[in-house]
């Protein structure tokens, strides 16, 4: 299983795979990589995550639901689509791909994913935002599976470029993925990192923009538009590709192609998404970010089997 996992489609190991570098990070064979066979139906999985995320939000209305619904398929493709190497038993397994979830506030959908993969007991999902729980409104690396501090936008990409450079210098075969919001890309710090990644040809760096075209108070275009974001990133020397951010198969295909393309340029996937996807009243609502669906709406969306 583990060998198979490592050789699953979409996993590219340059050279002979594992090389040894100073002190830390030698391949220990201790990893347990949950890269998934083709048997998993990604869109079913996404639907399950969608339900679980709504259920969490019903229990913990402090969570940002609209933001967390737009990124579900992205994370499903990354974690169930054979894109990332990881080991729930050893979250900081050196041979993992690094996944930096920079739009932390909008990643509550990772809670059911991480729980199901075995990072922590599923029972924790019942306690989100409760006293004593480690699953808060904004995830931090006190949660197994998270790499960096979240909540403050615009840090993930910079830290990720540092990791990508570090991996490169160690001749480490793994990649770095970062998931950002489109509003988040207003932060100038990102553009410093974008220039940096180009300068150093960090083609082990993958930026995924959850491009729901909405920030906190409005559509991003009405606040500070990225106009043609792909064109901007390309002018900055990045390879970019856009796809439907709710189509798990498309995401899987594109991500696995991205991961195996190494042409000396950092890569960005602009995932076209809908903030508050699947919830009437949130979809296409400029203030979706701060809206909480009514309890009754959540109930009707979930039916009565929601709290499995």
């Amino acid at each position, binding site marked *: 299983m583990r060998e198979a996992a490592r050789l699953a489609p979409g996993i590219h190991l340059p050279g002979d795979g594992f090389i040894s570098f100073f002190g830390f990070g030698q391949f220990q064979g201790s990893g347990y990589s949950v890269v998934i066979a083709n048997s998993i139906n990604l869109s079913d999985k996404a639907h399950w995550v969608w339900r679980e995320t709504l259920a969490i939000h019903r229990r913990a209305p402090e969570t940002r639901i609209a933001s967390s619904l737009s990124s579900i398929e992205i994370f499903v493709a990354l974690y169930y689509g054979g894109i990332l190497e990881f080991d729930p038993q050893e979250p900081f397994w050196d041979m993992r791909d690094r996944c930096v979830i920079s739009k932390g506030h909008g990643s509550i959908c990772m809670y059911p994913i991480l729980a199901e993969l075995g990072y922590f007991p599923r029972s924790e999902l019942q306690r989100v935002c409760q006293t004593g729980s480690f699953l808060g409104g904004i995830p*931090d690396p006190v949660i197994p599976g998270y790499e960096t501090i979240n909540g403050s936008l615009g840090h993930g990409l910079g830290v990720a470029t540092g990791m990508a450079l570090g991996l490169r210098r160690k001749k480490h075969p793994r990649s770095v993925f970062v998931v950002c919001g489109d509003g988040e890309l207003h932060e100038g710090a990102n553009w410093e990192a974008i220039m940096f990644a180009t300068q150093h040809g960090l083609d082990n760096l993958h930026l995924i923009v959850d491009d729901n075209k909405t920030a906190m108070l409005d559509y991003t275009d009405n606040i500070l538009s990225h106009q043609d974001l792909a064109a901007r990133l390309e002018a900055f020397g990045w390879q970019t590709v856009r796809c439907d951010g709710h189509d798990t198969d498309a995401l899987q295909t594109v991500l696995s192609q991205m991961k195996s393309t190494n042409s000396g340029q950092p890569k960005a996937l602009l995932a076209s998404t809908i903030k508050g996807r699947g919830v009437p009243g949130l979809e296409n609502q400029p203030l979706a970010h701060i809206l909480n669906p009514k309890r009754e709406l959540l109930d009707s969306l979930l039916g009565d089997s929601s709290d499995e």
Partner: protein
Amino acid sequence: MNKPRAMRDELLENIWRAMDSNKEIFFVSADFGSPVLDRIRSDYPERFVNVGVAEQNLINVSAGLALEGFQVFAYAIAPFITMRCFEQIRVSLALLSEVRQMNVNLIGVGAGYSYVMSGPTHQCYEDITLMRSLPNFQIFSPADHKVAGLLFQHCVDHSGPKYLRLDAQVLPTIYEDAAPSLKKGFHVHQAGDTTCVMATGYMLHTALEIAASFRQQGIELGVIDLFDLARFDQTELIAELQEYTHLVTMEEGFHGRGGMDSLLFELIARHDLDLRMLNLGIDGKYRFELGSRVELHEKAGIGPVAAAKRISAFLER
């Protein structure tokens, strides 16, 4: 009128009301809102701008507008409007205002633990220290929406850069009837026997609660709300403090790291006051625990129960 409401809503409503006749007011947000903000956005689209998730530019745009004569209110989450753009604040506000006249008012929402569920990036324990480090800044830390609302007129009447540290939660109204004197910068809620508790922001609520419980044990604690952390009336405050032998400071921020306690250390040393101090604040570490605000405060040793115990122990020493 005295129904508790969010500090920001009271302040923003005053701004909104004034924008009709005062054409010099400009409101700048870093993609941060409130129900009242929607009114500003829709009624004064020419003098409202959302700079996006870009706090650095929030400050520099505000500085530029102020140089052109606008009275600027800049609005964002407290840790981000103070820390993400700290050097912009230093250069384009604290420093520049020493040479050129400008009126920029930073409104930071989310003092202390007030964003309970959002973890340490949204919680704010360093802002008093940071803003105190900057010359030329006025710093206000109100304890209820009444004082937050009063600050509006002060901001318009007085030039210079200011920081308004607002709570994110709806807190009970403290100044039901009488407004405190902004000029004095502090308000004496009750006189005490030997010990005075000086609190700012949310902690005033805790201080008053503790004072009430001490009263039942026959101990009168003095309680002072220090809501102006830069330009309060020193002479008057010293006169108050001279009545006491013990001083307890209470702030929802790190203690011993340049916050309100450090301001009082300095004051006391400068004026040779003979006061023993207990400084209640958050210990120097970040916390990832979840819980209600009171629970987090109790764990941090600044909740009503924990703080009362520490004050008792202090008085017995």
